[in-house]
């Protein structure tokens, strides 16, 4: 089997207007890239929400793959605003091919 290496995958759920804030943080810690997935509805402590393009009630999922130390730097950078900005962050180990890319 082709050789794989371990990296961290981080996914952050954020209000659409705050997505730029999150990707700026990713760029700032030197991670090479990120990808945004749409989300359509959800429920949390603040109740239900549905994607509404007219009122801008949108969230998005920002996904990024990074080395352990850059992932840690990102988590540190976002930790202070997780609660105030209503972000949801999960992080786990993934195998990638040609890991020097990340």
């Amino acid at each position, binding site marked *: 089997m082709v050789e794989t290496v371990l990296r961290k995958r981080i996914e952050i759920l954020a209000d659409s207007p705050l997505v730029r804030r999150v990707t*700026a943080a990713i760029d700032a810690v030197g991670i090479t890239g990120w990808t945004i997935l749409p989300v359509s509805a959800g429920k949390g402590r603040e*109740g*239900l929400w549905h994607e509404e*393009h007219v*009122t*801008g*009630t949108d969230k998005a999922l920002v996904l990024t793959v990074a080395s352990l130390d850059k992932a840690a730097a990102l988590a540190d950078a976002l930790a202070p605003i997780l609660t*105030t900005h209503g972000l949801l962050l999960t992080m786990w180990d993934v195998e990638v091919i040609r890991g020097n890319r990340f």
Partner: protein
Amino acid sequence: MESAALSTFTSPVILFFVLGMLAAAVRSELSIPEPFAKAMSIYLMIAIGLKGGVAVAKSGLGIEMISAMVAGAVLSFAIPFYVSALLRRIGRLDPLNAGAVAAHYGSVSVVTYVTAIEILGAQALPVAGYMVAVLAVMETPAILSGLLLARKGMASDAGSDAGGHARDDLLREVFLNASVVLLIGSFIIGAIAGPDGFADVQPLFDTGFKGVLCLFLLDMGLLAARRLRESRSITWRLALLAVGFPLLNGTLGVLVGAGIGLETGSVAALGVLCASASYIAVPAAMRMALPQADAGIYLAMSLSITFPFNILFGISLITWLARALAGS
């Protein structure tokens, strides 16, 4: 006024709004696809901008337009101050949420304006073309005063950690949000193209207008009622304020409009602009600038209570007041 109110309730535009609210109230699965709803809101802004611009191309610019624009800007900036004070005292909101909500009431709702134009038109009360420029001008000042009010109430300025990036984003959102760009842009296009240039695009932007407005209000009825049903943050005090503000602000707008000598239709339109609350441009700016504020409050108030109130009753009341004050 009775027959006017009656004709309001036999107009397809209003009836589709009611249908949307009823469908959401009985929890039907009916929904308008989001990208299509967004496209309709863009269409409405362009159409209203173009028509305003073409009207100005015909009538020419005048002192009236300048005074109406100044009045609109001042009202938009000023309204949040007393609205926020009422929200804190009567509504029992903290300064942060009071400021966020107040920004919505100082700003305007394009669809409320558009619906008012239709209703006023049906009553032979034409609205000056430049009122679209007033509408565009009123989008923004309220956001600034709302932020001022909210930031005052924050122990440490949580927004300041944002750095330059976030600040730029916010300024763009405030001054170059989609509504402002579309309204001003198509107003200018309408003014340049004039009646002749407009003729070619009239079938889409004028003839089809009322039908699109029906579909859009169907969707807004659905969104407004669903949000109210699912809302957790609305108290009776806030609900009352959400009905009181349009009455208060609408009266203020009519007084100012009559005071600066606008024609009756435009007086009513200024009243409606003051009475209306934003649920397109301002929520996006608040999410960016005040993420700690509870979106459940400001959207439920502006979209689920004030907006339906204005569509169903507010516009008619304000029109009646404008007629009484400015004659017809």
